[in-house]
């Protein structure tokens, strides 16, 4: 819809005003958690007070000096980086095959590759718990990385398929007619053009893995906890004020990644 001027005339009708009021109420509800978390995180006591009486970095300092929080964060970071890499490798290559190669049973294969998306995470968590448990892989970085890759890869595939659909097939045909073989076309034309999409998919996969909690909660153990698992038990058992600092940092990370993907999408359009 093209509306000249910033304030369309139709916003004056009673229907539009009513819609705007409800809409703004919902916008408020949507960002409310982020809005209260951040002030609380600057409190200076070991209890949650809103609004805090004075501002300090006490909770942040506590987070960065308590080794079990930092260990969990590093574990999450490690798993997120590894599973993002694996997701991209497997997801982009299968998306390329699905969109550019001709073979039988493509529909079934597409459904299979995307199917982890349709399985509720608690079901996936239980299945992996039973399976990795029997293979003695619960509580290991390998088990965690593989599990996260199953969760994130379908989303990388969906993103990559959309990106590949956007690439003008004539560009690849042009390169082929000029004498480039499949691998050379892939390396010199398709992949460079797919780069923004791959970055978006990668950021998405990273954040999903970094925030993943249900599957991780089932397959982790006391020795090896990711940050979300530790946060989950902390909220469940005793609410530690450090959570406010961690939550603020996570919100900041989400915001950064959210804005980065918007910018990347705009650039590739």
């Amino acid at each position, binding site marked *: 819809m093209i509306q000249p001027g910033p304030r369309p005339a139709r916003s004056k009708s009673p229907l539009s005003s009513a819609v705007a009021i409800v809409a703004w109420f919902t916008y408020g509800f949507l960002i409310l958690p982020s809005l209260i978390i951040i002030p609380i995180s600057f409190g200076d006591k070991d209890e949650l007070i809103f609004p805090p009486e004075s501002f300090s970095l006490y909770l942040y300092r506590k987070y960065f000096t308590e080794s079990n929080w930092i260990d969990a964060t590093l574990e999450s970071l490690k798993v997120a980086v590894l599973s993002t890499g694996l997701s991209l490798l497997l997801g982009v290559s299968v998306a390329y095959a699905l969109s550019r190669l001709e073979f039988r049973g493509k529909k079934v294969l597409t459904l299979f590759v995307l199917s982890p998306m349709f399985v509720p995470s608690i079901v996936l968590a239980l299945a992996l718990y039973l399976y990795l448990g029997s293979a003695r892989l619960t509580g290991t970085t390998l088990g965690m990385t593989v599990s996260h890759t199953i969760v994130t890869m379908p989303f990388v595939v969906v993103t990559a398929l959309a990106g590949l659909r956007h690439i003008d097939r*004539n560009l690849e*045909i*042009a390169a082929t*007619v*000029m*004498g*480039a073989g499949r691998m050379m076309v892939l390396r*010199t034309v398709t992949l460079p053009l797919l780069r923004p999409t791959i970055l978006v998919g990668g950021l998405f996969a990273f954040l999903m893995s970094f925030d993943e909690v249900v599957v991780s909660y089932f397959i982790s153990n006391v020795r090896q906890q990711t940050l979300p698992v530790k946060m989950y038990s902390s909220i469940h058992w005793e609410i530690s004020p450090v959570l406010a600092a961690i939550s603020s940092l996570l919100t900041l990370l989400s915001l950064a990644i959210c804005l980065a993907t918007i910018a990347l999408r705009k650039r590739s359009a």
Partner: protein
Amino acid sequence: MAHQPAATGHGEILRFEAVTKRYGGVVALAGIDLTVNKGEFLTLLGPSGSGKTTLLNVIAGTIAPSSGRLWLKGRDITDVPSSQRGLGMVFQNYALFPHMTIFENVAFALRVRRMSQDQIARKVAEVLEIVSLPHVAQRRPRELSGGQQQRIAIARCLVYNPDLILMDEPLGALDKKLREQLQLEIKRLHANLGVTILYVTHDQEEALVMSDRVCLMNAGQIEQLGRPHELYFRPATMFSADFLGESNIVPAASRDEGGVRMVATAAGMRFACHDAPPPGESFSIMIRPENLTLHRAEAPADALPGVVDEIIFSGGTTRLRIALGDGIRLSVTRLTSKDDREIDRGLAVSVGWSPRDIVILRG
């Protein structure tokens, strides 16, 4: 249609042998036999869905034919992958690589062929000079206008001397003026460089302007193949007559009168024609509007009387629709003159014609 001998006498570059393409029950190409000669500008002309683009893609190797063979310079390339065929291709949407500079775009095929840096730099500079865009080497495709991008796309083909350049409606995205300018430019490049071009278009005027030969396609088959002049003045079928230019098509019948075969048309023309179909067979005749003349007084004896029904002024020429009675109407095209203002609807006129401009259309 049977094939016709090549218009130009050079050697053969490309030959189709009964090439057929079926999609399920739909026949996109129905047994195409066609030869393209070296140095020739051959245009595949036809309405959308006629099979011209499918045929081009079969040559490019992006569509595999259901049956038939394809020969390039005497080599059977039916099963040779696209990248090994040594062709060039120009697309309607230019298909320049947006992530590369113009230089890298043009150099692409040379890099594939592993040429040295010096050679690449020299050849790219040369070819950019040929398309009169020597200063854009470091720019990106999106910084150029549509016409400039298409010239770069052509340069990208010329630079590696492919045996055959395929052009898929390359001027379809440009406005009229630029299109006409580039038509002449491509024609000039063709004449100067001696490249072989297979051109696809649905624009009959473009086909007539540019081609050595035109291959008119309809419903997956070759309707007529010949020089533009032949197609225009000697259409072999109703479809050809109707597709190319304006035409008057009138039903006719023949009769043998004392050893002479006479043709009578529904428009009232009568003339002798020894190769007309025998009596009893139904056929039509075609005459171009510009071959008819308009008379107000002193008309020739056999001129057809009628009444002006419609006047279409289009600048340099004016087309008049003359009602002859019996629902028959003829179009007459003539150069516009200042006196035309005197012609009005309902004016009684007569239409002059000559038997030698008449083409018999069978079927």
